[in-house]
């Protein structure tokens, strides 16, 4: 019943779009290059040219009037401001932000279970491991500034492209730990009792896996061998310093989780930058040595209910203004190198956040799979 009703609605919507399409072409002699696409055509558009330029894309997106984003917490990489900025720039489009605290796997689950419905996510901000299992859910598209994204940061066909990476960092309450944190082993000291938390279970959350990998890099391991990282957390647990609760902005503000190992953009976002909701004494350190990051990917749902708005969102994210917003939160945007060259990077923000380290690694798909296998076997026993 329900599916039939929805199918009927979809047919009607398609018909309405087709009708307006006829009206559009008949009526508009002046704006000749602007094209009006059907839903199916818009879902296959691979660049702004398919809409007849930006004006056509904006018009099509305005007609849709909605954009469904998923798993974008407001305090994560400045997404709160980025979403507000979009709604201000394009007041005709309302953003529905679903399941902000969900995982990449939740994004895929939502796209599959809500397929064909108006609530399905239009765009993804997704981790590489989950994305690689679900490439058939993604529609190829190339933003206007495609050439500014380095070649190894994007799929040649435009199926996915990097958006930003954080660096694994240690956030801490500088009032409680005035001496600061210079090296990872500092955390094993007795003054850090019940203090150190990571963002969940590394066999579930990528951010927690990255905390273990960062510890491995600091303790003589490598992206191919994260065992020293597991050993470090075992020592931390034995010292009574590991806190196995899930840190949140509220626990950082209240002081319950005084040290959190997580992405730099989250540590920055939970500190003074958050105003009254943040912890004013929260400091973020990226330890010297090899920096560990993990680029997230942007991609468009192949069945996006608002395909034009989805593509407009991507164009918006890759404008210098938004790339600078990522940077301000401590998330290094994909176009940073090109922006530094073109002079469009916000220099005061870059000076404040610090340039991306020259010695930077991230786990490849194979390394991540290997690390997960090792963690599945060893993690629970190490911190049990």
């Amino acid at each position: 019943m329900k599916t039939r009703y929805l199918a009927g609605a979809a047919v009607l919507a398609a018909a309405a779009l087709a009708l307006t399409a006829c009206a559009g072409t008949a009526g508009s002699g002046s704006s000749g290059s602007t094209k009006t696409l059907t839903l199916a055509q818009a879902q296959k558009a691979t660049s702004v040219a398919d809409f007849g330029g930006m004006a056509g894309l904006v018009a099509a997106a305005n007609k849709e009037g909605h954009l469904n984003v998923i798993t974008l917490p407001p305090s994560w990489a400045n997404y709160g401001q980025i979403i507000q900025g979009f709604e201000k720039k394009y007041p005709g489009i309302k953003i529905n932000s679903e399941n902000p605290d969900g995982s990449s796997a939740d994004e895929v689950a939502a796209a599959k279970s809500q397929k064909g419905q108006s609530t399905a996510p239009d765009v993804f901000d997704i981790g590489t491991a989950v994305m690689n299992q679900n490439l058939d859910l993604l529609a190829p598209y190339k933003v206007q500034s495609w050439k500014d994204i380095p070649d190894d940061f994007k799929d040649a066909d435009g199926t996915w492209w990097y958006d930003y990476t954080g660096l694994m960092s240690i956030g801490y309450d500088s009032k409680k730990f005035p001496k600061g944190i210079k090296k990872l082993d500092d955390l094993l000291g007795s003054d850090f009792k019940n203090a150190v938390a990571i963002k969940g279970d590394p066999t579930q959350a990528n951010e927690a896996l990255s905390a273990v990998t960062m510890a491995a890099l600091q303790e003589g391991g490598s992206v191919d061998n994260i065992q020293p990282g597991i050993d470090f957390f075992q020592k931390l647990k034995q010292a009574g310093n590991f806190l196995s609760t899930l840190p949140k902005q509220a626990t950082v503000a209240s002081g319950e989780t005084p040290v959190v190992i997580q992405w730099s953009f989250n540590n920055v976002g939970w500190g003074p930058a958050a105003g009254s909701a943040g912890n004013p004494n929260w400091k973020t350190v990226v330890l010297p040595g090899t920096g560990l990051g993990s680029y997230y990917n942007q991609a468009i749902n192949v069945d996006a209910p608002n395909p034009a708005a989805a593509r407009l969102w991507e164009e918006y994210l890759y404008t210098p203004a938004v790339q600078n917003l990522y940077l301000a939160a401590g998330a290094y945007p994909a176009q940073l190198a090109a922006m530094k060259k073109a002079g469009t990077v916000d220099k005061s923000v870059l000076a404040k956040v610090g340039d991306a380290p020259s010695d930077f690694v991230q786990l490849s798909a194979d390394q991540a799979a290997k690390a997960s296998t090792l963690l599945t076997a060893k993690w629970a026993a190490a911190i049990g």
Partner: protein
Amino acid sequence: MTSLAQSRGAGVGTPRRRGARIGVGWIGVVPFGAYALLFLGIPAVLAVASGFFTENGAFTLANFDTFANPTTQKDIIGSIGLSAVTAVIGAIAGAIICYALLSMRSDGWIRTIVDSASSVFAQFGGVMLAFAFIATMGNTGLLGIIINGLFGDNTYTSPLYTVPGLVPVYLFFQIPLMVLTFMPAMEALKPAWGEAVATLGGTRRTYWWRVGIPVLAPAFLGCTILLFANSFSSFATAAALISQGGLISLDIFRASTSETVVGHANEAGSLALAMVVVMIVLMSAYGALQRRAAKWGNR
């Protein structure tokens, strides 16, 4: 009041009218039946069935390999242990409260307050409850501040972030749930029975041992099983407090949403089946006990 209404209902109805009433009653049950089927039956079947398939939809038994993993085994035992402990403590404490309330006027203010507080607290769970306990029993919580103030810094380590630490948290909603569900059974004890025992020369102890406990036992066990299921299926509170696993509900979450260990999402289905099996075993044992009790009662 209730007994009056019941006797009137039983006395007035003629057989024909009673038949008609059953027909109407059957229609009345339909919305609930449909609701239970749509929101309980079908999702449960789909969830459990997913455990028998790969993510590509092919039949497999590989998802059951998870039960060979020592972590899964430990977490199943952890879940059963936590649920059993909080169910038994909750049931006993709740029953004692009910017993205390029995001696009070049913429309008195204490009863009214306890009743309404119980219905609020029995539903109080999730992240809110977790944060309330962090504020009270966390490392920087009230209890920690008092203990550290008395015995020096760093003497207090919060027990909250371990599976045993969930016991006081769960009791916060288990005891009120017991009060809510067990009170009607307690109220059904007729004062006349106590008088009868007294007339026949029995003591108060004889009354409870020979009459009260046997009459209440089925309801008490039923409520205990409800409490067990309530705790067994709890997720949000535990997830907010414990991020490193230790319970089967957390394992289901991990399997179905993992960003790092991909391709094992359907193990969540086989874990769900394990939970269903535990409940079936428990309910069957309860049913057997119930039948035995009924036989004993008829003798």
